[in-house]
């Protein structure tokens, strides 16, 4: 397996570099035109356009067409983050070579600032289940995750970030804690982590996890991006469960957790996700402004960003 230092010496993206504390939003088809207009009009004015855009890789793995053309145009104006949801890094049968090639083609064409995937699986016997399914935290999973992450990094020639999951089930067969698993994966592969604050809140709430202990054990040096999103609460479930539905504004509890987490790495970019009940661009940009306020509240006295 590739030692972590080899990844660090790999070719890194030549695309735009994200500024300190950059705040981005997800790229949705319906906002593409408006985002282009804002980029052309922004002229360096803060708050008029997001600092970067994050796209779901699988939506843009096309040979051509207007959606693809628009993405190329957006890439000229915004730093991009390519966020995969279908590579199935935790799949026991390995990752799909064709899909990895598609991801590589996309990454080569965009030179994004960030590339990320999930601690999850979705593929079995050649079929794709289009959700981020939970990985049992056992030795075999660790070996498979590390091998798959390593294969992806080797093919892309760059480091990827792996996102912590939102969980709805507690697995008694786990032999690692999530943080032990993440630490070992980082150590063995040299990958980075995408710390999804919403997922951390949801998993802690649903699993009865000690959130402070969890935060204390995260390898912060490896984290490369924050994710924020809205969630809902399924009170019909017994016991009730928090659901990572990305369908509403970021909740107060998650903003509070964000304020705690960003003290660890103030310079990292933050992405505000909103994949269901997608609002208009104005409303989404209000969340970006709110994120800036939360950052300001944390760092105004400490001067941590200077």
């Amino acid at each position, binding site marked *: 397996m590739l030692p972590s230092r080899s990844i660090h010496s790999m070719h890194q993206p030549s695309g735009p570099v994200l500024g300190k504390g950059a705040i981005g939003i997800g790229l949705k088809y319906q906002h593409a035109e408006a985002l282009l207009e804002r980029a052309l009009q922004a002229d360096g004015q803060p708050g008029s356009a997001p600092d970067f855009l994050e796209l779901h890789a699988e*939506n843009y793995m096309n040979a051509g067409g207007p959606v693809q053309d628009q993405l190329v145009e957006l890439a000229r104006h915004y730093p991009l983050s390519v966020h995969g949801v279908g590579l199935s890094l935790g799949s026991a049968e390995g990752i799909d070579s064709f899909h990895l090639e598609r991801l590589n083609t996309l990454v080569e064409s965009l030179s994004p600032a960030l590339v990320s995937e999930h601690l999850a699986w979705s593929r079995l016997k050649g079929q794709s289940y289009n959700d981020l399914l939970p990985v049992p935290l056992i030795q075999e999973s660790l070996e498979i995750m590390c091998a798959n992450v390593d294969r992806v990094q080797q093919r892309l020639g760059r480091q990827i970030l792996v996102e912590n999951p939102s969980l709805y089930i507690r697995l008694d067969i786990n032999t690692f804690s999530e943080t032990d698993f993440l630490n070992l994966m980082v150590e063995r592969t040299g990958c980075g982590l995408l710390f999804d604050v919403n997922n951390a809140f949801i998993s802690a709430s649903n699993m009865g996890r000690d959130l402070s202990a969890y935060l204390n054990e995260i390898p912060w040096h490896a984290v490369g991006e924050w994710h924020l999103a809205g969630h809902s609460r399924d009170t019909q479930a017994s016991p009730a469960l928090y659901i990572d539905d990305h369908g509403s504004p970021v909740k107060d509890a998650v903003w509070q957790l964000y304020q705690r987490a960003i003290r660890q790495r103030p310079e990292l970019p933050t992405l505000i996700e909103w994949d269901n009940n997608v609002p208009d661009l104005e409303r989404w940009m209000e969340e970006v402004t709110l994120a800036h306020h939360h950052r300001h509240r944390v760092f105004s006295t400490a001067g941590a960003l200077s």
Partner: protein
Amino acid sequence: MSMLLDWQQRFIAAMRTSERADADLGQDNGLKVYRNNIRHSLVEALEIAFPHTRALLGERFFSALANDYVTIDPPRDPRLNRYGEGLINRLDYHPALENYRFVADICRLERARLDVSHADDAISFDALQLSQHEDLHELYVLPHPASRCVRCRHDVAEIWDVMEQGQKATALGPNGPGYWLVIRRQRKVSFHRINDNSASLYGILSMALPLGATLDMLSDPSDMGPEALGLALGELLGLGALAYAPDYQTSSLKDSGTLL
């Protein structure tokens, strides 16, 4: 078998049924969330892909059909804009749709629209280029990558046209089965009824034979004959449905469609 593979196989089996799962797969209320997520996202992908089909079938019937389909035939590709090809087959054979088989034709056209929307671009081969080419036996012309030829089993022309205009579907037209060419030029996808000879020529050209040999074969009076062949070639050239093969990317060839 590996412990993880066994666990993942049992987990997916638990996603396909609401019966109580093995204890090591997790708690029932949490499994239900994953089950709903998978189902919801796939059904939603079908709703987005096939809006006219959904409108024709009605919300309740489409939902039942889609829920059944996603359980039996989950995607093989994580790119959801590729999902749903098999839905056409189900519409062709669903017993409750015996008197509504034309809905499958609308679904075919919607599938073709999606395919050409995400296909590669190429410069259309035109009549002038054809006339200037010295040796047609050295010329390779293929269907344009952002085109599909669709055979509809019913005359759905009027239904399609009014639905595209956001109006309620009307009755089937008086004509029988027929071919459509679906093509994207720049950003716009357009739909054209084409004659049977044009569809045959389109299909044969997709086999990547030299144009000269293809024309020699089809111009034989026992086949299409020179006049019909000329009309077919003219129709395809006029619609921009052909592309010069060297302009074709290898990746496009892999993704190009033939007859749906």
